[in-house]
């Protein structure tokens, strides 16, 4: 189908005013924030594939008609909402269609009795959170992309937030949802606290990255918003290993701070600039506890007790407050070309593993990055989402790119491969919360092992024509 035909067909399905074939809208809608793409853009280059057009539906019926048309005509479609992807998950297939749910915005219901909120897929999380805060509630979901992300994308990418140690990831926050299958069928999973009527169908869509369906609506849990009852404290601890032991003790003993962050010495110096506050070579721990005052205080008291046990020096609450205030500021400067100006490609890569291996992964990755990559300018990491069984490590890195934008992707993948290889070698997961996107797809067979076959079967069942977000999650079968 040529572009004109495609635009005509889509215009008939959803109205010409909702179909955009101009260069600017296509480029803006294809924009991904993975490190090498930011570098390429700052260098004036664009190597991302070009879609034929962007469709912005306003209703679930329009989504249904759009998908039905694209499915019948075997046209590739890439779903998106807020556009905060850092994994190439919203980059289109050349000549395909971008299905942008950002115009489907709005809170449908705040149910204070059932403690739920229902919002359409294009509802900005920041708007939703502000509206809930005014009524004394919170979603408990605070990804760093808060100023950019929309509800649909959060569900589709299996997002998590900075307070996840208490509230859990989005998979624990979604009560029910609505999605549109590639053939246009609208499915709804109803809102109940729990049920045992077969596999949990919500989980088919949570983290599906648009490869199985388009999420149009979600109902999320509500929590009481108690910003005045937070307990905050920072500690300096001997090193990353000691810090991990500290966190494990807190989590394994059953305490649930909302925020637990452990920054290594490299991040303390190079990212936080806190060399004056934290002794050289030591790691920094940030804790924030919240909930009913008695629980927040009891959790905080327990953390303070562990700090004594692990010889961690009390730095007071201000480092946590300062982090809290500025924690999402990076969203406003993603495209400022700063790293390009410095001659580096910088990014993060988050993995997870059980307690018995996470420290080994951290050590192995840092040793390989600093030892094998000559151009490495910085390598560090932090743990920021903790569980009784283990934690994540958010590796942060920067390497000099002197060969220019043409080499950016290959050089980037060489660095990322080290992180992911070391993780897989020790039984960890290569994606804690950003999802597979396209850049991690080749690692998915090893990530899933024998269960990977289920992914293909699901794909075949829900998207037999294979039109949905080709290239994410699934390695193309030969």
């Amino acid at each position, binding site marked *: 189908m040529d572009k004109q035909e495609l635009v005509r067909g889509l215009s008939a399905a959803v109205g010409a005013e909702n179909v955009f074939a101009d260069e600017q809208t296509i480029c803006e809608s294809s924009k991904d924030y993975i490190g090498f793409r930011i570098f390429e853009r700052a260098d004036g280059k664009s190597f991302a594939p070009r879609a034929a057009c962007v469709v912005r539906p306003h209703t679930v019926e329009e989504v249904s008609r759009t998908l039905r048309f694209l499915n019948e005509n075997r046209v590739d479609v890439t779903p998106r909402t807020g556009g905060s992807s850092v994994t190439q998950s919203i980059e289109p297939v050349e000549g395909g269609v971008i299905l942008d749910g950002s115009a489907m915005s709005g809170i449908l219901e705040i149910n204070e009795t059932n403690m739920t909120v229902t919002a359409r897929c294009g509802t900005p999380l920041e708007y939703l959170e502000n509206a809930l805060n005014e009524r004394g509630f919170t979603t408990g979901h605070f990804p760093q992309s808060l100023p950019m992300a929309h509800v649909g994308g959060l569900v589709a990418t299996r997002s998590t937030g900075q307070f996840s140690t208490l509230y859990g990831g989005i998979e624990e926050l979604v009560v029910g949802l609505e999605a549109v299958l590639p053939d246009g069928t609208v499915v709804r999973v109803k809102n109940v606290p729990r049920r045992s009527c077969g596999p949990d169908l919500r989980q088919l869509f949570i983290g599906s990255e648009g490869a199985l369906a388009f999420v149009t609506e979600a109902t999320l849990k509500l929590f009481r918003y108690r910003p005045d009852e937070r307990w905050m404290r920072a500690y300096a601890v001997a090193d990353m290993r000691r810090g991990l032991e500290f966190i494990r003790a807190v989590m394994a003993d059953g305490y649930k701070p909302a925020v637990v962050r452990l920054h290594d010495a490299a991040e303390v110096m190079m990212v936080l*600039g806190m060399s004056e506050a934290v002794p050289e070579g030591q790691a920094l721990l940030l804790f924030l506890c919240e909930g009913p005052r008695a629980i927040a205080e009891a959790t905080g008291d327990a953390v303070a007790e562990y700090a004594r046990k692990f010889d961690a020096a009390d730095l007071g609450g201000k480092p946590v407050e300062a982090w809290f205030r500025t924690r999402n500021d990076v969203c406003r400067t993603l495209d400022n070309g700063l790293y390009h100006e410095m001659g580096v490609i910088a990014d993060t890569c988050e993995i997870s593993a059980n307690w018995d291996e996470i420290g080994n992964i951290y050590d192995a990755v840092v040793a390989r990055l600093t030892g094998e990559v000559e151009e490495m300018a910085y390598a560090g990491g932090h743990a920021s989402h903790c569980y009784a069984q283990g934690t994540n490590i958010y590796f942060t890195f920067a390497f000099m790119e002197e060969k220019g934008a043409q080499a950016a992707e290959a050089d980037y993948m060489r660095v990322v491969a080290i992180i992911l290889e070391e993780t897989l070698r020790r039984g960890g997961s290569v994606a804690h919360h950003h999802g597979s996107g396209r850049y991690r797809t080749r690692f998915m067979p090893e990530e899933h092992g024998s269960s990977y076959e289920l992914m293909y079967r699901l794909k075949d069942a829900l998207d037999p024509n294979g039109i949905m977000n080709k290239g994410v999650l699934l390695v193309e079968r030969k």
Partner: protein
Amino acid sequence: MNILVLFKTVPVWERVLERDWEAFSPYGDLSYAGKEINCFDEAALELGLRLRDEYAEQGKEARCFAATAGTPHPSFAQTLFAAGYEDVAVLGAGEFEFASEEVARLLADYAAGGDCGLILAGAAAGMADTGTVPLRVAQKLGRTFITNALELRARGDAVELLCQEPDGLYRRVVRAPLLASVSNSPAVLRAATLRARLAVRDRQARTVWGDKTFDGGTENIIFSRSAGKRVCGLLEFTSVPGLAKTLLEHELSGKASARAAQSRAFCPPNAVVYDTQNILWYAAEPAFGPLRANWHAGKPDYALFADTYTGRALAYRLARETGAFFLTGALFAEDGESLFRRACASNVLARYRPRLPAVLTMEKLPVEAERVSLETADEKPPFWLLEEEKTACANDGLRNKKAVVVCGAGMGSRANCERARELARKLGAGFGLTRAAALNGWGGPGEIVGQSGASISPEICLVLGASGAGAFAAGIENAARVVAVNSDEKALIFRHADAGAVADAPALTEALLAAASCAAR
């Protein structure tokens, strides 16, 4: 050529907590906020290295050295060594914040002992943030002083500078030796590999005159939070198009009640304003004789100058010679006896009680004061100015329009900013950017509003997606009415606004454009 770059480390201002601003002390522990090299100094450090590289490409030798006063953390010196600096000198010991003259004396003494054809410094650095240290060092060394440099190029024994002046962009070729201050350059210090950092792990900054201690400079200063004097009324709305209609019909049409006209600048008795606007920037020196004669004849308690390059140069020279109290960017307090100036990137106000006589450059000159116009007959460029060419005009829209639309980094993209620019055109308004937005590449340095750019005073200023950092808020303080739009209801910008809307700024921009088109039909 040897290149010496003067730098200072400062707290990361954005991370300083509100209660520490409210009870600000320069001796308070702000280490939790982290420290960084001042952004203007960082640009100067990188421009020094680029110039060195350019000389190397031409087969000429150039070397880079850095110096600072105070006690920066050793990690900063390692960063500079790894980036290519051959030496890092730490001058003196102790607390030098708010002691610009002592800092300048140390730096000038150090520079005088070397052979540096070019000295670079950020336009403003340190907590005191006076922006006068480069000027003071230049005068002490008797050096040519060039301000507002954005870029540098090697031109034999001379240096070519691209300078952003209030009236436009200039290319200047200046014979060395010279001292240049760097302002809104987008340059940032290059990264170094871990291996380069490892290679300099054992290198330390060199302490020079560690016995020269200084403690104070702040004993006569009272600090207070610079938090704006406006009371923001948040606009309630049910839809973004509805909000756009309200803004267009009420706020942007001039129907909203503007604040009472700004009170005129207080004028103390026995004050003289020395008008320097007819003096060409390079001709301050010939004007000093008449200034000195006039000052000695009348001995005014307050000799007042505009806070411009020429005003500062003449004022500092006069103060040095007469021993008078000297302050830049000053505002008279309502009691008429004390003075304010902004500090810490305009996050706090420092209140001074001056001794008399005082020589001041003023943020706003009093109209009642006696005026003495200073002029120079000889307008020929000096021998050291080899070439000068204006390459772009100033953004007059910022200063001459009744309404100005200003975009912050919260607009999210260049494309969104372009839409706001279109909105400004439709409204017949001027257009500006915060420094953060300009550094995102969404506009030029001539469009920056704030401490390091233009200070604007339109009847209505619509601020879209700005967080409200002190340095930006200083630039809109004289607007008759400020309307701010930000999706974060806790954003500081609402403290500096008369009306505000908690809304998505790009979406509102689109709605305003649509509403403006409807209104035009």
